[in-house]
């Protein structure tokens, strides 16, 4: 256990610099220690121009999809934001109920990340049903996300849902968006 912990600590140290973070990511992936996912994500979020794909690969190896839901259901907004960022990067239909709730998070930063994660999920029938549901939201931003992504998704059911929604949409700008996108 001691050697694992010392290896883990050494890997975390390597994540502090963009010059060495790929080495650190490799060590963490080999250790298989899930504690490494959040430090990897924090390194990924650093504004550096060095290649970051190694960090993503390590997070995937460590099972980022499995820890994201517990983070999103936590009390701490920063933990929720991190979980939602993982959900954006490593998508899964199973996230959709949580994402549907998170887009109404009272914290604006968490909410923005949730919207982004939802837009970036694989566009499966379940995702489509979630977005169709958002067309009824009282939040204009959420309706805008739903309108723009469904219009681009362009499945017959998505287009039908947009056509039905058009008359109910009170925002003239969004109505115009529906008209334009559906026509394109």
């Amino acid at each position, binding site marked *: 256990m001691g050697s694992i912990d010392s290896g883990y600590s050494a890997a975390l140290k390597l994540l*502090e*610099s*963009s*010059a*060495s973070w790929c080495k650190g990511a490799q060590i963490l992936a080999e250790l298989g220690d899930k504690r490494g996912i959040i430090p990897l994500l924090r390194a*990924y*979020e*650093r*504004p*550096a*121009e*060095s*290649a*970051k*794909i190694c960090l*993503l*690969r390590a997070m*995937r190896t460590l099972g980022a999809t499995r820890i994201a839901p517990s983070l999103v259901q936590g009390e701490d907004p920063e933990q929720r934001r991190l979980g939602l960022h993982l959900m*954006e*990067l490593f*998508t899964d239909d199973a996230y959709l109920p949580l994402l549907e709730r998170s887009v109404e998070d009272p914290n604006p930063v968490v909410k923005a990340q949730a919207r*982004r994660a939802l*837009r*970036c999920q*694989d*566009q499966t029938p379940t995702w489509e049903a979630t977005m169709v549901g958002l067309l009824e939201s009282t939040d204009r931003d959420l309706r805008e996300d739903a309108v723009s*992504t469904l219009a*681009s*998704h*362009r*499945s017959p059911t998505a287009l039908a849902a947009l056509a039905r929604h058009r008359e109910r949409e009170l925002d003239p700008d969004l109505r115009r968006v529906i008209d*334009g*996108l559906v026509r*394109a």
Partner: protein
Amino acid sequence: MAREKLDPPVRREVTPTARSSNLLAKKGPLAGGTNVAWVGEILGLQRRVGNQAVAEFLERQTDAGRLFIQRNPLAVLAAPVAATHPDWTRDQLATIQRELRRLGLYGLAIDKIFGPGTRSGLVEAFGGEEWVTLAPDEVINRLKGASPPTGNKGEHRFRYGEMFKDGILDITVGVGFDETGAHGPEVAAIKAGLKARGFADDHVLASLLLLRAHRSVALDAFGEFWVKPKVLSYAPPAGPPRAVNAVVRLVYSMTGKDGDKAASAMQEGLTQSDAAFYAGHARVGSGPDFSGVFEHAEVFNAAGQSVKRIEDFDALELYLETPPPDGGKRHGLGAWGEFNAYNPILSPGGNLSDGDRRTHRLMLVPSPNAHLLLNQTMVKRGVVGFERRLIYWIVEKSGVKAITGKHGALAKAAAAQPDRKYRVVVFNACTTQDYKPSVQGTPGLDPRSADLIMSQRETLWAHYADGLLAFLDSIVAQQSAEQTVKAMNQAEPDDETSKAAFGPGNPAGMALDPTIR
């Protein structure tokens, strides 16, 4: 050595087309919205600089179609420039050159030829163009009575005479865009640092000070204008001391949506300001950027329906190297090969027809054009990764042209203002030495016209405000070029590599800069 003639004189006649009051009445609100407070400011401005100047100023502000033309390349008033070649004998020229050399302001041969080197030395000696109006004996006597600038022997001075000759230190600071929002805290830190130094965000006062210095800026120009009157006292060796005002134009785009305006303002600053400082992403050697790499990507199925949206270029790379969720296969081409296998298309606005979606199975929607492209072709250094290839793919498909080079936008802008012969430019981003050949190959930013400070390693966002403020403090203190770089390096440490951000060879340029004796 070939004789180099002084640039032809620039004379500007101010011929107002209308009195300001009539103009306001005729044209209505100023661009950028009506504000009763502006009227008071304009009346104050008239009292200070006169009706004709204000009329001319307003005429320029209310020209139609000037959304992105935030400064006028030509000054509002006649600037004091060297009108004629001084009528000096060859012996007088030799004496002048010897005296300039004694002062460390001239490092070329005593060739009795009046060229850019002699001119530059005289501007540094007198702090402007006053020498043009003086009798030869007076010029020589003033030079003989002057003491050399002090400092560490062998170090270089920025050409402060050229910078301060119109009584103003005009700096454009551009903070680029970061996808994770790292620019937000740096902008806040820069503002706090300016406030702590006695600067105030005052667009109107900036307009007035710039006008008095024979420069102009639109009242609706993009960005913030931080001002500090009498920021320093400048005492040239052979000229009268004078107070210098400072205007720092701070441009950035928090969301990236108006990044095009920030980029336009930064581009202006590169030739029109005394100093221009960019801090942000270098975009792998391509140039400063005020919005994201792209807005989003979409993958389409065989029916042209979107099946995946991606808003992060690293996530796009991961997607392309991972087997798709529908059970399909990758071609084993690596992320870049897979990208091209989709027959990708760049689509501003993202509105593709169904036919295009079936032909191009991957669409990239670009961000607003907020990229100041300095290198038209990719600078290949180390492993050429996905991001580097993607950025240059976007450059190629968008048809954006580099602003550098003999025929680029920067060269044209520099040529349009012959009285501005010098500037200091800092590119504070990751390994911006990649910019050096293209920037120095641009007339107006060549080694005789600009001093460039560029990084030799990845620089860190968390230090950008400190680096800028160290630069500003050094300029205000009129430190040597070497001391300025040293101060910036101290402000931007890297504990991991201990490698200086700005390495040997900085600043680049300095061909005509004074040397401390």
